[in-house]
């Protein structure tokens, strides 16, 4: 067994895929020097023709990746800051995502958009701290948020091999994670297949990205009184609705914890779908950032807008109480 960090897992996934498929290439800002470390060593192994430093020009190089993909390449773009997705939104959502349908299936756009350190990073303030996965799930772009090093590896590999555009969000809160894994057993993880990190019989907590680890801690804290099942969807689009339904068959109670804004967020979608089609014995709850949140700079203010373990504990207890009395 080897200790694998989340960061190294991302790096390893790109390297393995570049090794396996000569069409895979990397686009991004400072990817040769590997400022974020995600692309460390790749230029040395694969050369500057396959690891391309780009000018500060996100719209152009995101669009270039679309054209390159339609002509046979499989670009992986690294964005150092999640807010850059807003600049490239046109190119991803309106171009790459729509080409397959608009052309009647004549082409596909196999580009992977990798966003390391998505969400709040200490002290980066308003324009560096968004976690906009719900936007991409909303428009139907395949959207992935791995929580663990093995899943970071397996989901990124799958994203790169996928013939459609896929956005991979690596939460800042998960980047420091390490796990003892057997490198030989690292494998692609299919999109749309959730993972139960902790089985339980009282309440299902759907936790997204780094919040899986918070959910596991809270579950342990409450173990004497509540048996919490922690369900990690791993990909938000496609979403493992069957897996969730099976979990709710067992528990009948639902809490979602998700580090994106409340209104129109993935948390709302999970609650709505569960309410429409799944077994619930109590009103579900969600823990998210507030509506329209912009993370302020000061540490206390930043933390104040992120979902907390305390809020999650409160939500779980509330759902249990409602289930008992109602």
């Amino acid at each position, binding site marked *: 067994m080897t200790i694998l960090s989340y960061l190294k897992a991302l790096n390893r996934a790109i390297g393995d895929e570049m090794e396996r498929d000569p069409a895979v290439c990397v686009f991004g800002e400072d990817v040769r020097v590997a400022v974020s470390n995600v692309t460390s060593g790749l230029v040395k192994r694969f050369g500057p023709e396959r690891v391309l430093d780009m000018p500060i020009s996100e719209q152009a190089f995101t669009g270039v990746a679309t054209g390159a993909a*339609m002509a046979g390449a499989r670009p992986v773009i690294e964005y150092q800051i999640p807010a850059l997705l807003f600049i490239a939104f046109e190119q991803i959502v309106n171009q790459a995502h729509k080409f397959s349908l608009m*052309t009647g299936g004549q082409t596909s756009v196999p580009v992977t958009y990798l966003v390391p350190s998505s969400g709040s990073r200490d002290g980066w303030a308003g324009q560096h701290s968004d976690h906009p996965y719900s936007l991409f799930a909303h428009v*139907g772009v395949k959207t992935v948020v791995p929580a663990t090093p093995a899943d970071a590896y397996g989901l990124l590999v799958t994203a790169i091999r996928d013939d459609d555009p896929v956005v991979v969000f690596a939460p800042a809160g998960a980047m420091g994670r390490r796990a003892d894994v057997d490198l030989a057993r690292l494998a692609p993880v299919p999109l749309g297949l959730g993972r139960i990190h902790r089985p339980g019989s009282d309440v299902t907590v759907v936790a997204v990205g780094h919040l899986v680890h918070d959910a596991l801690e809270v579950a342990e804290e409450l173990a004497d009184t509540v048996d919490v099942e922690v369900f990690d969807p791993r990909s938000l689009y496609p979403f493992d609705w069957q897996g969730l339904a099976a979990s709710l068959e067992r528990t009948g109670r639902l809490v979602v914890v998700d580090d994106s804004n409340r209104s129109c967020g993935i948390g709302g979608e999970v609650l709505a779908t569960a309410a429409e089609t799944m077994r619930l014995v109590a009103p579900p709850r969600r823990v998210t950032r507030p509506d329209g949140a912009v993370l302020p700079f000061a540490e206390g203010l930043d933390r104040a807008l992120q979902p907390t373990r305390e809020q999650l504990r409160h939500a779980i207890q509330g759902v249990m109480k409602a289930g008992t009395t109602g």
Partner: protein
Amino acid sequence: MAEPVIATAAAVPVLAGTTAGGSVPEGLAAADSAKAGSVLAEAAAVSAEADSAPAPDSAALYRTVRLIRGFEQRAIELVRSRVIFGGIHPYTGQEAIAAGTCAALRADDLITSTHRGHGHVLAKGADPARMMAELAGRSTGLNRGRGGSMHAADFGIGILGANAIVGAAAPIATGAAWAARCAGSDRVVLTYFGDGAVSQGVVLETFNLAALWRAPVVFVCENNGFATTTRTQDAVAGSITARAEAFGIPAERVDGMDPEAVFAATARAVARARREEGPTLLECITYRHDAHHTWEHSARPRYRTPEEIELGRGVDPLDIQGARIDVARREQIDAEVEELLEAAVRFALDSPHPDPATALDFLYADGTTARAGAL
């Protein structure tokens, strides 16, 4: 899914242009001097060939102009009779650009097009019948009725799609050019945009990248004087050619009403691109004889005077090119094109509408199914 334009197996990315851009750290560029020598020799041979610019095929150019004109006239009629849903952006008057540029391309070269794309798509060789069926939203259309007028694509003959977002195709074309070169091909990609697009940041960003990489791209600006209703001089500071020149891209103003002038300029630009000398911008000065969109036929916004329109329509690529061939040949071509277009309209009208149950087919390449909007 259709065959990729460039087979993935062959797409071993080797980007010669990055070394040319000087951005490669020392020691990383694997220079193979013997190979470089042979490339230079080839380039010299191609260069000598290009200097003796090919003669235009006047009759073929006339035929393309005639085809596009006739196609547009029929499409406008089909909009009026509501066979074509929504409307179209007529290309009438601008045909010289599509005809001249595409005549200078090889069959395996690629193009990207705009919301006013019928001319480009037809000139590149799309089947007028399947094109008309696409406009009519039929399942036999180029895009199986999923793209319509603004998104017509035929990847089999190098048409990477018309694009309804102004300027959005420029980076796509540049990416395709990069990947084509990575795959070892000498294909050129030609991308069209209007004068409105030169104020889109992404187009200027793309100029920067294409110049840095010496990408084999020809940027064709169709300057018809208006971004919808806004005059170019009210929207564009400085000159359009200077915008490209600022990035080190050679730029040329071309008479966009004359198919042979467009052909000659494009042939030069294509030869440069094939010699790996990088992109060129052609600013083709043209005039749109018809509306920005057929919506104008009823809304009638006033942004150009009747006198101006009359003057503009007086310059007609159909007449200019028609005068270059003898009358008998011209009549023969007219008759052939009429017959072809009659058949195209019949084909479109006889074709089935797509099954509404298939409305989200092709959304994902791997067949992922989207959830329904209602239970």
